[in-house]
């Protein structure tokens, strides 16, 4: 769609675009192209000399067992967070959609964790499950479980998953509720007249009609797990113990900073860019087309 009547100044539109284009080029295209260029270079230990090494950084990267491990960690982490936060949020949203008198109040009380910073959410959950003083860690230890997210890899993963799910429920709840409320009541009434019980109505009518929302949320959640959980991971585990919670984004950060391997870190950035572009392409392709039965 285009406007049919427009202004025909020559210089003005460029002046209007200038601020955004300058900022975008300086802080976006320039660094992004640097990342790509750097991924083909190797710097010496002092960062003084760099030589062109072609695909060597990529070869080194894909020869690293730790890189595959961080991929696996990312896959497990995103699957758990997306599956749990989507299903829990859907459960709450279907209940809030039942024409309850208090539904608006519930909505307000449900959505505010969206505003809590990921790093702060991580600190809150770490406080509850810190092995020596955590309020919820003590009962676990009391039951004879040697709960220690600082040392046990599975416990650490469980903790970051819980904190990430907690933070994401509100967002998913909001979109699921909006999706549910946009389903025409007549469809549901019709199936009720045909004798379908609530559970059956949910799986045969509501869930299929909700699929555009679900699919959209799935993509958004995966992107969330990739990037926004950085603060949670850094606050709770710092990628540990023994790299158990090092996701791909966390590894870019850790390798570039602690390891000083800028070429390798840049190569990882490029791999991530490719993944994100693929995800965004999927989102635009399918969300626009409205997945439905």
């Amino acid at each position, binding site marked *: *769609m285009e406007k*049919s009547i*427009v*202004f*025909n*100044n020559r210089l*003005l539109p*460029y002046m*209007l*675009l200038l601020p*955004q*284009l300058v*900022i975008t080029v*300086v*802080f*976006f*295209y320039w*660094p992004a192209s*640097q*990342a790509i260029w*750097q991924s083909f270079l190797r710097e010496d230990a002092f960062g003084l000399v760099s030589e062109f090494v072609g695909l060597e950084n990529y070869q080194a990267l894909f020869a690293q067992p730790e890189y595959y491990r961080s991929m696996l960690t990312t896959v497990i982490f995103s699957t758990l967070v997306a599956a749990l936060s989507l299903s*829990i949020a859907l*459960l*709450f949203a279907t*209940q*809030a959609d*039942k*024409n*309850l008198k208090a539904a608006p109040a519930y909505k*307000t*009380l*449900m*959505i*505010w*964790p*969206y*505003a809590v*910073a*990921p*790093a*702060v959410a991580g*600190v*809150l959950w770490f*406080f509850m499950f810190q092995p020596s*003083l955590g*309020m919820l860690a003590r009962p676990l230890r009391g039951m004879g479980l040697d709960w220690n997210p600082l040392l046990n890899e599975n416990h650490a993963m469980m903790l970051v998953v819980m904190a990430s799910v*907690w933070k994401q*429920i509100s967002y998913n709840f*909001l979109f699921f509720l909006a999706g549910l409320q946009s389903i025409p009541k007549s469809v549901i009434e019709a199936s*009720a007249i045909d004798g379908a019980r*609530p559970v059956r109505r949910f799986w045969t009518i509501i869930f299929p009609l909700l699929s555009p929302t679900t699919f959209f949320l799935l993509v*958004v959640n995966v992107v969330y797990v990739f*990037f926004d959980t950085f*603060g949670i991971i*850094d606050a709770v585990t710092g990628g540990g113990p023994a790299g158990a919670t090092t996701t791909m984004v966390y590894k*870019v950060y850790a390798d*570039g900073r602690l390891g000083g391997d800028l070429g390798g870190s840049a190569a990882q*950035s490029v791999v991530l860019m490719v993944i*994100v572009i693929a995800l*965004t392409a999927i989102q635009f392709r399918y969300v626009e087309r409205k997945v439905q039965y």
Partner: protein
Amino acid sequence: MVEHRPLTDFIAYAILTLGIFIVAFPVYLALVASTHDAATVVGGHMPATPGSRALENYYRAIFVGGTRTSREPVANMLINSFVSAIGIAVGKIFISILSAYAVVYFRFPFRKTAFWIIFITLMLPVEVRIYPTYKVVADLRLLDTYAGLILPLIASATGTLLFRQFFMTVPDELLEASRIDGAGPFRFFWDTLLPLSVTTMAALFVIQFIYGWNQYLWPLLITTQDSMQTIVIGIKKMLVTTDELAEWQLAMATAVLAMLPPVAVVIFMQRLFVRGLVQTEK
């Protein structure tokens, strides 16, 4: 729903109440911890009700800082967070409303190219290009400055897309009418388009304020001086101490303070917030 049965309603209320409990519990614990003294919190037998040290803890967190951690008091961090969050929100609105105006209301060579240059930035969050961006900011001597905290984060397409979408819904007759009245592009923008865009701007402001306030990785990288820290990274640094004992009651008071502004925005501007969230994601 179709049928109304007391039992179904009861189950719905029960599940929702459980949900609210899960959502609120971690924050409640932080509130409680921020009102006890250090020994009670660290001892691991903290009661489930607030203690009596609230005033003292918040006063120390805000104005004095920790003793063991020798950290800056939080007041300064709060100012930094406010400046950068508002800077990001206002900056984004400013540059994106202008560029959307250019793309929608003018025809000029390379219009599509300019739009795509902006549009593609949607795909690459700052996290994937952190070190090169860090280097650019360092070369421009913007480390430890508000400009360094703000500018790299406003380079994104969401605002432009949002305003473009809104401008497309503004009836053409308005432009026709104001041209008949002899208005040029400035007058039309200022007198007609801007007043119409107020709600969209407010919704975008709410979302971007929360986004800016909650930034973590970027401020962590580019602030080296304690005086430039934002509160979200300050709280994390409070827990990483050389001593074995972190001052949890102060850390939790700081966490509460860090949550307060964005949570207040969501609760009190809920309609704008929901509107902004739905629009920026589509």
